[in-house]
């Protein structure tokens, strides 16, 4: 793919990222961080291609497989832990049922 096009996409995504996150209340900083952390596990896509490619090199397969394992931990752990945290944020009414 055209390299300039890739750089173009990168630049636009950077501006989009700034716009998206600029006004998040401080309460949500941790879930936002762990949620975006899970997204950084997108490198799993590269890991899958590396692990599955047939280049007759055991090194690529080993590195790719290790990358798949690590990226999967990042993705699965990140999303689940974020969901667990967000499940605990309660409004006043629902928080009172323990009384």
């Amino acid at each position, binding site marked *: 793919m055209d390299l300039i096009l*890739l750089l173009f*996409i*990168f630049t636009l*995504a*950077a501006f*989009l*990222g700034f716009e*998206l*996150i600029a006004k*998040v*209340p*401080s*309460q*949500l*900083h*941790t879930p936002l*961080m*762990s*949620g*975006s*952390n899970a*997204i*950084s*596990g*997108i*490198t*799993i*896509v*590269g*890991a*899958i*291609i*590396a*692990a*599955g*490619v047939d*280049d007759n*090199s055991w090194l690529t*397969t080993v590195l790719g*497989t*290790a*990358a798949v*394992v*690590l*990226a*999967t*931990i*990042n993705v699965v*752990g990140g*999303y*689940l*832990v*974020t*969901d*667990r*945290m*967000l499940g*605990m*944020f309660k409004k006043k009414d629902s928080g*009172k049922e323990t009384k």
Partner: protein
Amino acid sequence: MNSANLINLAYIAAAILFILGLKMLGRQATARKGNALSAVGMLLAIVVTLLDHHVVSYTWIVAGLIAGTAIGVVCARAVKMTSMPEMVALLNGFGGLASLLVGWAEYGKIRAYGWDAYLAEFSGNPVFTGLVIFLTILIGGITFTGSVYAFAKLAGLVSGKPVRWAGQHTMNIAMLMVMAAAGVLFALTGSPQLALVAFTAFLVLSLILGWTFVMPIGGGDMPVVISLLNSLSGLAAAAAGFVIANNVLIVAGCLVGTSGVILTLIMCKAMNRTLVNVLFSGFGADAGGGSTEGAFQGELKPISPEDTFAVLEAARQVVFIPGYGMAVSQAQHVVRELAELLEQNGAEVRFAIHPVAGRMPGHMNVLLAEASVPYEQLVEMDSINPLMPQMDVAVVIGANDVVNPAAASDKSSPIYGMPIIKAHEARTCICLKRGKGTGFSGLENQLFLMPNTRMLYGDAKGTLQGVVAEFKALAAS
């Protein structure tokens, strides 16, 4: 339509889901749904990648996916909320290492095919691909060992105190320059042997640099470090995206990178320091720093849990100010119990949260949410400060620098200029503290010496249970 187009269309859909997910994560009402949406995007991206025509063998992929999922599920279920900063640091580190390995595997592929066959099979330009492989290794390596070191600091495996030595920064900069030179050599040289040497050099150095770069940063600056490493893990993924010319990696990685940068800057602003200052000053290493100690005199006045109860029982307006100490002693549940008793007693209760209280952004909010404190009771610093003079009692639970009035008044103080929660303006201030030592910054806290401050010594959980018991005895009688 061929499969490559189908895959790219699915990647666009995944990118849209990530963007919507992140947007929804920014609001309380939609946050959980947003996280789920972004997870669906991730699943979509993974599934269509399996259709990529370069992927011919599935054995190792499936094994890796199963192993990773199992470990991820166990970690996410088992982790305690007080250990969340460690967890986030560790997950960051795994993401960074995964990106590093993707870059390394791509280099392995180039060596296996040879450049000509590689460029015919995949797209790219040798110099550009070489440079982005270098960047992926550099950022991924720093993210990995930096996160592991941050994890070790947060988990208490190594001391949280800054580790410094003379020439430390010079050494780091020298390493960075050697790596840059190796990176340029790697991208430009036509000799495979030379490229391998350069690659090995920057691979090893990036791993060392991540470690030495986090070493001089103290425990209290962890919110900045964690969000910076989060940003880097995204940028590592984006760099890996350039290596394999993959849009979805670039977009998702870049979104994470910028959101991490914003959080980092918010954290720096909350401490009134620049990022450079946080990263390179080794704050708190020069313990003491109190040339002005003579200027502020006073004594520490201890208070018992019984007397604390008497003060709180009479109070109509109470504000709790939690800090890292609350996390250490796991006191959040007993704090919530005390807050409910105070409300039944007719008091209005608030929780004042400083942006950098704890060890990661939003740390206190997560702990109080775990203890079922409704989020309407959590008040940000700028909203609570004007109300402070009307507060009958401010209860400071294991917070230190974020309530130190020296930040506002003492120009010689290292934390001068840092915005604080003005606990000293409340009529009475009760500070819970484990012992008489200074906090991570090594500063004597003027708040503790003020006439209206009382010190409640001991483990916060234990002392607060004592106060709660007094309230219950009152209710029973």
